[in-house]
Each structure stands twice: as C-alpha cells, then as structure tokens.
C-alpha cells in the first residue's frame, strides 16, 4: 500500500568524496582525544596529582554542604512550571512509542487478561486494580524520563485537575 504513493528511493546526498575521507577524519578525532588526555597535569609527580585531586574533592564537598543544598531547599516554586500544560502538548513532547506500550502489555501483564488481535484492550485488570492505556503511558514516560516527572502528578490528574 505504501508503494502506491511513492517509490522507495534515497533523496539524501552527501558531499563529494565524503565516505573516502571519513575514516581518516575519525582517526584524527581519535588522535585528538588521546592528546587532550595526556596534558600538563599528568607531567606532575603522582603524589602531587593525588593531593590536588583530594583537595578538589574536599572543596566540592564543602561547597555542596554549606552553599548548594540550602539554596536548593529554599528555592521558591517555579511560577512558570509545567502544571498548566495541555495533555496534547505533553504527550506530543514525550512522544511515547506504541511498541513500548505493547511490549509492557505482553511481558508484564498475563496474556489471558489481554484481548490482543492488533488492538489494545481499553482497560485491563492486574493484581486487583484496573489499568488503562493512559496509566501505561504514564508508567512508561516516568520509567524512561524520570527527570520529566511532572510535579509527581499523573497524566489523568493533569487532564482533570479537580
């Protein structure tokens, strides 16, 4: 059916001799990385390097304990946080892949509870609780993007804040 609309062809191009030159450019990058590793610091005696590393770690611990932690704890809430964002924008942003939803459903949910014939069941019972597609998407989003958990609200709470 796809081939009714277009032919399978490659419309992307590369600069001339790109693939001829790529291996040597990769080697240059490898050599460049080796050189930045062996720098002035490694020319000092080992005892001095060790002492400077320990001193740096101590300073970082000091700054963290007395400056950064209180600053983070006392930071006011962000008035422009993500609470007011629509569900459409959120799901578009997180862009959950349906194959991941299917993967969870077929590996984490007993097969006798699924009616999978190419369509996902609207609601499934697991361990005495009902789960729907939104619950699974929320689980996947928070599993894969814990840094994006939205004020620990579920997606359904965001849709219906009352």
């Amino acid at each position, binding site marked *: 059916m*796809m081939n009714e609309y277009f032919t399978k062809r490659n*419309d992307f191009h590369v600069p001339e001799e790109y693939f001829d030159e*790529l291996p040597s450019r990769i080697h240059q990058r490898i050599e460049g990385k080796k050189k930045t590793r062996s720098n002035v610091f490694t020319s000092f005696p080992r005892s001095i390097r060790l002492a400077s590393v320990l001193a740096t770690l101590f300073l970082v611990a000091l700054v963290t304990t007395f400056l950064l932690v209180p600053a983070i704890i006392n930071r006011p809430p962000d008035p422009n946080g993500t609470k007011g964002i629509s569900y459409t924008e959120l799901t578009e942003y997180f*862009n*959950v892949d*349906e*194959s991941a939803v299917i993967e969870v459903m077929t590996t984490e949910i007993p097969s006798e509870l699924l009616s999978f014939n*190419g369509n996902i069941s609207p609601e499934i019972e697991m361990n005495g609780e009902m789960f729907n597609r939104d619950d699974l998407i929320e689980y996947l989003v928070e599993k894969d993007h814990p840094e994006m958990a939205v004020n620990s609200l579920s997606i359904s709470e965001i849709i219906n804040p009352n």
Partner: protein
Amino acid sequence: MSETTDNQLLDLIQQPESRRYGFNLLVRKYQERIYWLVRRMILNHDDTDDVVQNVFLKVWENLDRFRGDSTLYTWIHRIAVNEALKWLSRTRLRQFVSFSTVERKLEESLTDDHYYTGDEIHVALQKAMLRLPAKQRLVFQMKYFDEMKYEEISKILGTSVGALKASYHHAVKKIEQFIRDY
C-alpha cells in the same frame, strides 16, 4: 576484492600491530550503513556527520569490551541507534522551554538542506515519519528502507518481534493517513 569478514576484522583488531588497520577496514565496511541509518533519523548532513564520528569513536573505545554475544554488525548498529536517539533527546531538551519540537525544526531544515532533493510527495513522507515517536520511526526505516528482518531489528533495538510488527503496522497506518490528509 572480497569484503573482510567480521571474524577477520576482529582478529586484526585484537593484535596491537594491526589494530589500527583492522579498525580502518571496519569503518570502511560499515560507514555507509551507519551513516544512512543516522541520516534518516537526523536528516541534516552536518549533524549526522558528527553523530557518525561519535559512533565510531565509541566503537574504537569499546572494542576490548565487545564480547561476541552479538554480531559486530548488530553491536555497531546498536551503538548508532543509541547515539542517534541521544542526539534527538539532547536536542529535545534544548527545545523544551519554547515547546517547539525537534521534529518541527528538522522539518524546517529539510526544505533548506541542499543535500536533500526530494519532490513534494517524498517531503511529505519525511514529514509523516517525523511525526512518529523516535523509536517507531527507527523501526519503520529499518523495515521499509533497509528491508531488515524483524529478527535483526529485534537484536538491535532489544524489542520483541511481536512488538516490532505491531509498531511497524501502526507506523504504516499513521503515515498513510498523513499522506492522504497532506
């Protein structure tokens, strides 16, 4: 001249005196496949070039950790997939504040890219693919353009064959609908 096999490459790489030569052969063997896999995800040549170099840099740095529990082909593809997805995630995070998605930016760059010469219908196909979740887009590209078997894709992505078939089926439906509405 016949292509060097993966076992021959690994033998060369394991010897310190031929490691560089073996790695050079490895790059020449896989560079185009890896390049096109990444290019179809990222679209722009310069960004793709960057990611592809990162891929082979990672391959070089981790050659000693390659245990042979997958083929060299699968291992390198897995690194490439991870690097491409990481690039998309990093770019997405940079766009987060404005809510203008990575995909919209890529779409805009497509029409300005002088290394892309697709006609209107093929531009529509690229736009349709950009609307798929990143992993689903990868599945579609590997199946439709690279004509890989589901079992091969499964080894690279770590997703079951059943889930891949469903994902591809959904991807085709979404793309067809987008083209009809375009």
